């Protein structure tokens, strides 16, 4: 299908779609919050978020709150644009 090339391979997994969707409508979201929203395991979230960071679609911030490490995510402008065009490709595909 010729439309398929507009779809972003990076977003093929449901988990990545979920991460991006949550970050599109929120500012910084922390690890636990994200894990609970997507109902996935720690390892699953860690690997997918690292992949998205590598593509420069999200930013990962690691800090300490008291003695506990805290990881938070935020979407970058690149990620925002990429996700938006992925969405419109999806919509085109479904003939909307």
């Amino acid at each position, binding site marked *: 299908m010729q439309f398929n090339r507009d779809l972003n391979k990076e977003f093929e997994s449901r988990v990545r779609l979920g991460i991006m*969707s*949550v970050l*599109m409508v929120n500012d910084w979201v922390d690890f636990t*919050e994200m894990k609970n929203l997507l109902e996935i395991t720690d390892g699953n979230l860690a690997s997918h978020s690292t992949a998205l960071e590598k593509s420069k679609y999200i930013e990962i911030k690691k800090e300490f709150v008291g003695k506990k490490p805290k990881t938070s995510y935020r979407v970058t402008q690149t990620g925002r644009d990429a996700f938006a065009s992925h969405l419109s490709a*999806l919509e085109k*595909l*479904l003939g909307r």
Partner: protein
Amino acid sequence: MDSKNYHEDLSHIRSMMERSSRFISLSGLSGVFAGLAALLGAIYVYFVFQREGINYFDGKRNVFTPQLVNELVVIGLVILFVAVLSGYFFTAKKSKEKKLKIWDQTTKRLLLNFSVPLVTGGFFCLGMLYHGMFVFIAPATLVFYGLALVNASKFTFSDLQNLGYCQIVLGLLSLFFLGWGLVFWAAGFGILHIVYGLVMHKKYK
């Protein structure tokens, strides 16, 4: 991937956006029971007035004794407590049914945005009580409550906004019919809550 998969992708995206940004467990029944509590409270206050020899509907200015004011404040607090408790009960229940956490980022955001106008209004009313300006309490509570709803509506069902506007209009209206606070209170906190609660309960079952 076939088109069914793409459809699922889209609905997954939509649900994730919604779940993470809005508090969607708010139950319509919470509104209905809060409204019932308010109505019963208003009726009770009417009988308290009668007991004190005050005929509320004769339109005369009545002088309230300090004891009566104290009693009214206590009744108001009891109603508030019952309303908040039943509100919490039905919303917690709905949240459990939807398998959502009741205490997450969306709840905190909703409560914070709801509280700012509401707490401001609360202190404003305490100030007016202090100065003995009782007739302005009803308009002020309705207006501030309406503003709190409009503010909070961005973080839960947007329908809440309309309820907020209705409360604000009612509050402003009551400012021009001073002395009829009980009636406006019953209409705003009682009837509007019940109507809105029923509509919401049907819409988002």
